[in-house]
């Protein structure tokens, strides 16, 4: 029997091989066969990821091609199979499975003679995400980062007949590619200094070289720019709402549920393995940078989320807001906060994917995702209404959802001032989702007045199914129900939270073991944000004229111009800001 670490590369090779075979059989394979094959491959990969995650203490390490180091050095590529890596791989695989099941038989007609192309692209996406999650080599991480990006551009633009879809996909592609090239520049700078590509080796060489200088700072800024573009941190975030609003719903589930979070994971991984030592970036500087960007991201995301009427765009901004919270949590730099963020990511993935899935049902039924136009029309979708409502409450952090536990643990680690921010951000984002639920599914309140604003409405969207749904297929409603159940399980399954916390602190450099459990304060905070969200939604629904505070949010909304040039300028400004935030420690060091 093989050592389990030898199976690590199969997390990548499995889905890729599945995709290649689906394309090879392309024209001969009926659709009814292609989709089960896709589901089976992604399910098998998920099972492998979970199987390996259960054996990941102590962490697995694999040198691909058997290039195990001799005298401490190797020419090969190392893969890391610790808890966080395999956890992210498992999350990506399970969400891919959910997205494939959701689109079972009902998704847009496949291109002629290419029945397997959509499941194949999803499998390639899965392979790319798994590869990025387990990469222990910086250049290898770049390769899989690009693989998942390239597939994501194609999937986002999948509905080529939609004018918005192709525009959103191009914006996504250009901004993310530029971020990736910044990442590569950073990797080359590190290679020039250290002559290594494996992350831990680079870190060791940096420490041996001495205190950090301009080169380390520049490499840090460039590498982080790449990951933060993917994580959609302000001011790198502009592409995300444009892409998420137009991508097919199953793809949104993956983009919001796991791909964006992989950017946060990349920041965590690279800081811990490369820059955490004395030759890297001092902890205080990383803390400052992530705190500032995280607070900006969560506030901007929450405000923009509140003012959307395009439901998918609204959910996209809520992802931006929550990513800000994740970044703050990672910036706290304690094992307890890392564990909290891990749980928060898992819980959020289930809730957010479920909300997107419900929105997709509405789109396919009514041909619109506009909150105003759909007012009261969703009354007949009882089951979907319940799921959407539960999802909104999960987003608010209602105990015992995984989001609530993760949020509570992160809040506890982050301190009282940031706790207020956490509560506010989850209140506002969940309040916006609850407002949508109240209006669309329950027809509450007066129909909002129309006045021309600088905004994207959700009207004129076309259903993703072949024809408008008469009744909701079982797969489409079962998937969000299961996702919500999973998010709930993250919070209540006995021992799960402790296991996640343990594996995260084992993987981090600080090996202090903390135990994760519900606290009274955490439960109360979760209930507070839920109640506030309900109150906020009620307030909004009862008003006829526009949403309160619309005037001062105007300038912020004008920044989201949909113009690639603007976004690129923001990207450079963000990189410069990141440099300025990290500069003090390097000068003093």
């Amino acid at each position, binding site marked *: 029997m093989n050592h389990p670490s030898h199976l690590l590369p199969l997390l990548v090779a499995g889905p890729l091989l599945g995709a290649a075979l689906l394309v090879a059989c392309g024209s001969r394979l009926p659709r009814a066969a292609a989709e089960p094959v896709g589901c089976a491959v992604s399910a098998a990969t998920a099972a492998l990821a979970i199987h390996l995650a259960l054996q990941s203490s102590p962490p697995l390490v694999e040198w691909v091609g058997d290039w195990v180091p001799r005298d401490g050095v190797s020419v090969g590529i190392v893969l890391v199979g610790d808890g966080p890596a395999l956890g992210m791989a498992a999350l990506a695989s399970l969400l891919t499975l959910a997205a494939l099941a959701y689109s079972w038989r009902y998704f847009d007609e496949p291109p002629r003679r290419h029945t397997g192309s959509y499941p194949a692209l999803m499998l390639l996406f899965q392979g790319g995400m798994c590869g990025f999650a387990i990469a222990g080599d910086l250049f290898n991480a770049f390769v899989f980062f690009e693989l998942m990006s390239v597939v994501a551009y194609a999937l986002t633009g999948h509905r080529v007949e939609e004018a918005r879809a192709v525009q959103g996909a191009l914006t996504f592609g250009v901004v993310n590619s530029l971020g990736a090239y910044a990442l590569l520049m950073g990797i*080359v700078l590190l290679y020039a200094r250290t002559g290594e590509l494996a992350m831990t080796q680079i870190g060791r060489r940096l420490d041996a070289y001495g205190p950090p200088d301009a080169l380390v700072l520049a490499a840090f800024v460039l590498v982080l720019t790449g990951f933060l573009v993917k994580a959609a941190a302000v001011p790198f975030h502009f592409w995300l709402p444009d892409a998420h609003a137009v991508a097919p719903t199953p793809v949104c589930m993956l983009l919001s549920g796991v791909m964006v979070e992989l950017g946060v994971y990349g920041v965590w991984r690279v800081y811990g393995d490369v820059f955490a030592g004395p030759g890297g970036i001092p902890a205080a500087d990383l803390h400052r940078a992530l705190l500032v960007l995280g607070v900006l991201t969560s506030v901007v995301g929450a405000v923009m989320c509140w003012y959307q009427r395009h439901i998918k765009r609204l959910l996209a901004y809520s992802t931006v807001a929550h990513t800000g919270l994740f970044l703050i949590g990672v910036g706290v730099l304690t094992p307890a906060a890392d564990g909290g963020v891990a749980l928060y990511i898992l819980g959020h993935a289930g809730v957010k994917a479920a909300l997107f899935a419900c929105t997709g049902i509405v789109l396919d039924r009514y041909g619109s995702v506009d909150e105003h136009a759909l007012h009261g029309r969703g009354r007949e979708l009882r089951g979907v209404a319940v799921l959407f409502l539960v999802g909104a409450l999960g987003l608010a952090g209602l105990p015992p959802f995984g989001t609530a536990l993760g949020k509570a643990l992160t809040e506890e680690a982050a301190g009282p001032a940031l706790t207020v921010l956490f509560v506010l951000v989850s209140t506002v984002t969940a309040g916006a989702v609850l407002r949508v639920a109240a209006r669309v599914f329950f027809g509450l309140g007066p129909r909002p007045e129309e006045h021309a604003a600088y905004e994207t409405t959700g009207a004129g969207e076309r259903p993703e199914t072949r024809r408008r749904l008469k009744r909701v297929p079982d797969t489409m409603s079962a998937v969000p129900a299961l996702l919500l159940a999973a998010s709930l399980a993250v919070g209540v399954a006995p021992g799960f939270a402790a296991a996640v916390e343990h594996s995260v602190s084992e993987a981090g450099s600080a090996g202090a073991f903390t135990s994760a459990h519900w606290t009274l304060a955490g439960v109360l905070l979760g209930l507070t944000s839920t109640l506030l969200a309900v109150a906020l939604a009620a307030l909004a629904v009862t008003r006829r004229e526009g949403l309160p505070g619309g005037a001062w949010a105007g300038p912020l909304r004008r920044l989201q111009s949909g113009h690639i*040039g603007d976004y690129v300028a923001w990207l450079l400004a963000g990189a410069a800001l990141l440099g300025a935030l990290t500069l003090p420690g390097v000068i003093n060091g």
Partner: protein
Amino acid sequence: MMSVLPYLVAVWIFLAGCYGLATSRNLIHAVGCLAVCQAATYVLLIAVGYRDGATAPVHSDIEPGSRPLVDPVVQALALTDVVVGATVTALLLALILQISKRHGTVDPDELSELRG
């Protein structure tokens, strides 16, 4: 200064590409600018791997150990980078083709569907 000039060239190319991207009035031109940004990474990679007086790391016509060799690793990385660049360019151009069909323009100033 001469010993870091090639690196500065790479930085210059990267920033020039960014300038072009931000000010472009034609999406096809913008994708060209993105390729310019990527060209900066090729220059940086190859510059980092260079060694004075060295030859290509290929032994089909030289005796192993007879001459200094440039770093083969950066060359392999550059090859990967080239493939990535070519494929991304192809995909983005395909999207632009569809944009020009659906919007009737490839001027980013005229695309106003997604905002706010």
